[in-house]
């Protein structure tokens, strides 16, 4: 996907949502330059569950594909001058610091947009650039709690449940990429850049748009979570996952009569479609009771026979083995920069029948410092001085006069960008 190949993106991002958004832009062809502290961005040096692959944080692996890395001391005056020159050559500046942090570094968005009117400046924050919570920590779990997502997950007779992956960061990233591409699109027509603001709080609400809209507009409810075994407050009877003798099966939207036919339950056959919601606890109890005595295979066979949408509840091991996932190429194992194999998810959208390649696996810190600086006109001598003074850092594999294109591990993927093109 070459859609964004003429655009340069400076990514002052850390943690998850910002780096993920930059990665989506990199997938679509943008030249994404990760601007990192000399010690590396947070996600290189921290990994939940403390896990590293051959020294590389899995958080970095999850967010680092299709980017170049530049390591620089942002707090030094010389470093700031280098960054200013990079910004002058960039189309997009994106960051997910807390509000005000870029201004403290001398890169206030207002100033940048005035000095560079074609620039697109995108911020991802926890709660927006201002307002009463602007300075609170914005982390996925906190936003799950604040947005109602934890409250609507679980059972009414049990506690709220946290979603078992960081879905809000991920959704915010997609929204941020969408907003940046919109702003670039507008710029191609008007010549004007502008500002895009994304908050985890609104991403969390957007992720529940259907459910929140129903709730706010008169849907009958007595609790945030499903009662009497019904999986959510808005589900009709039977919808949800049910334990079988050897696993769980998910049953999608259907009618009580269809469920009655599928499982030979007379009481359901007598129900009307209107009972699907009104009698949801009873329907759920009947279906759950029957399914609990059957195997997954038997349940699925009877649901398929009745034309009821269903699937087995699978875990991450099943996913990797899932033939449809393999067909889509959604998970790929590639050679990482250290030579050790790394398993990455693919960009999730196909363009002209192909998923964008991993043109660059997640890179070492500062692997492209030299080529990025050369690209905006620094001479080798100037770069050597910046390195010697500790303003920027290059990865050990990159020596003077060598343009580094780190392993591009996929056949057919486009070559890495060379220096000074």
């Amino acid at each position, binding site marked *: 996907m070459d859609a964004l190949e003429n655009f340069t993106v400076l990514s002052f991002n850390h943690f998850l949502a910002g780096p993920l958004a930059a990665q989506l832009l990199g997938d679509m062809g943008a030249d994404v330059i990760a601007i990192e502290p000399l010690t590396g961005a947070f996600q290189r040096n921290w990994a939940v569950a403390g896990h590293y692959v051959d020294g590389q944080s899995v958080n970095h692996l999850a967010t680092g594909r299709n980017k170049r890395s530049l390591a620089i001391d942002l707090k030094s005056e010389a470093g700031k001058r280098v960054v200013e020159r990079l910004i002058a050559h960039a189309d997009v500046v994106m960051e997910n610091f807390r509000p005000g942090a870029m201004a403290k570094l001398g890169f206030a968005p207002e100033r940048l947009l005035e000095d560079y009117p074609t620039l697109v400046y995108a911020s991802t924050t926890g709660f927006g650039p201002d307002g009463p919570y602007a300075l609170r920590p914005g982390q996925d779990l906190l936003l799950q709690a604040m947005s109602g997502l934890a409250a609507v997950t679980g059972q009414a007779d049990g506690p709220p449940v946290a979603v078992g992956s960081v879905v809000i960061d991920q959704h915010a990233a997609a929204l941020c990429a*969408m907003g940046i591409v919109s702003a670039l699109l507008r710029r191609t027509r008007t010549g004007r850049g502008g500002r895009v603001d994304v908050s985890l709080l609104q991403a969390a609400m957007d992720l529940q748009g259907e459910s929140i809209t129903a709730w706010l507009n008169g849907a009958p409810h007595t609790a945030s979570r499903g009662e009497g075994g019904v999986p959510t407050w808005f589900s009709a009877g039977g919808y949800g996952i049910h334990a079988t003798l050897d696993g769980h099966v998910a049953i999608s939207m259907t009618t009580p009569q269809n469920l009655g036919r599928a499982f030979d339950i007379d009481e359901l056959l007598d129900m009307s479609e209107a009972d699907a919601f009104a009698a949801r606890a009873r329907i759920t109890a009947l279906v759950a009771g029957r399914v609990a005595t059957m195997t997954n295979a038997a349940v699925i066979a009877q649901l398929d026979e009745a034309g009821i949408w269903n699937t087995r509840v699978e875990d991450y091991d099943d996913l990797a083995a899932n033939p449809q996932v393999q067909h889509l190429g959604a998970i790929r194992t590639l050679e990482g920069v250290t030579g050790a194999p790394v398993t990455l998810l693919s960009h999730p959208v196909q363009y002209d029948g192909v998923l964008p390649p991993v043109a660059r696996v997640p890179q070492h810190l500062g692997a492209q410092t030299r080529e990025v600086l050369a690209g905006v006109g620094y001479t080798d001598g100037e770069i050597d001085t910046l390195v010697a003074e500790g303003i920027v850092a290059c990865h050990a594999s990159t020596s003077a006069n060598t343009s580094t294109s780190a392993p591009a591990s996929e056949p057919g993927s486009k070559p890495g960008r060379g220096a000074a093109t």
Partner: protein
Amino acid sequence: MKLAMRVISFCHYLQGPAATQYLADLGADVIKIEPLGGAFERHWSGGRSFVNGVSAFLLSANRNKRSLAIDLKHPRAQEILFRLIDDADVIVENFRPGVLDRLGFGYEAVRARKPDIIYASATGLGATGPDAARPGQDLLMQARSGLIAATGNRDSGPMIVGAAVVDQHGASLLAMGILAAVVRRLQTGEGTRVEASLLQAAIDLQTEALTKYNARSVTGDVMDRGRHIGSWYHDAPYGVYALQDGHLVLSMNDPDKLAAALDSDELRALAGIDRYAQREPYAEAVAQALAGRKLSEASARFDAAGIWFERVRSYEDVMTDPQVAHLEGFTDYDVHGAPVRLVAHPLRYDGVSPSIHRMPLQAGCDTREILAGCGFAESAIDTLLAEGVIGSPPDAASAHSSPFT
């Protein structure tokens, strides 16, 4: 934000409509193509939520669009719709693979007529492959992608996520891909076939978790965890804790700070342990230190100590949240005299959130205006209506101002 482009939306349910709603919010002229009886989402609403007969499900994903009601199987539908397609930049559809091909509006047919079309399809599990024909619906893809297996704990068993998060995330990815293709066309003149699936949206939603999982040579057993722990891969205390008058979550936190905030000797004693390997005893100790306290008391202590925590809030709480109000996270709109409250477009452009400028409350309410806009005479429209090719509610003529014609 006012993107000048026309989008023909052959979409129903949620992923497709929500994707085209993002585009409509951004200023695209989105024409929602519906059957004469109206799209599925007009007749069904989760939680049975209707406002003056209008489905909240429709309201959640169809603002800022125009509606054209047409019998896609009628022999004249092709001629009418291709006149619209001639002026369009993008087609978006989320039928099952092959359905629009049979109706004559498949990718090849459209591209033959309009080579630079951006043609976007959202399917459940992909357009091809062993399971391409299987139904793709949010719950099923939650189950299929491991999201349910990764949610819940030993006490609760696997849990479904209580909102259609896969559909909504899939919608944002589809909109993103479409916009990128429009950028590409502006530069190269070429169209693009954009394809998204709910299955990959569900996988993408778990990028961090799956990357970690795949890096570890672990098995599904790693999901097993005690009742407080919020994910299989975070250190304790990450998770949900019960207090006397509600629940709160604790994010990643420094154990010394947490012990001091709760003035707990037991937590002080545990501060040095490996809070991943021994997360259950640590989480239980945190739960004990919190049990019996009031939210207000715990919140005051945590705020003072800089602990990352948040109260578990209901949708009512969200509605009255001052930060949500500050962000204008909700937009009120009038539906036949009744106020409805909608979740606003989530982004700001130059500090401004896109507003609602129209809402297709009835199927076909813009049929006349749309067809007039591509050159059909009023008498020709009347004839098509009389023959049952298109639909238009009787009061449609006065139903909308018309910013696009």
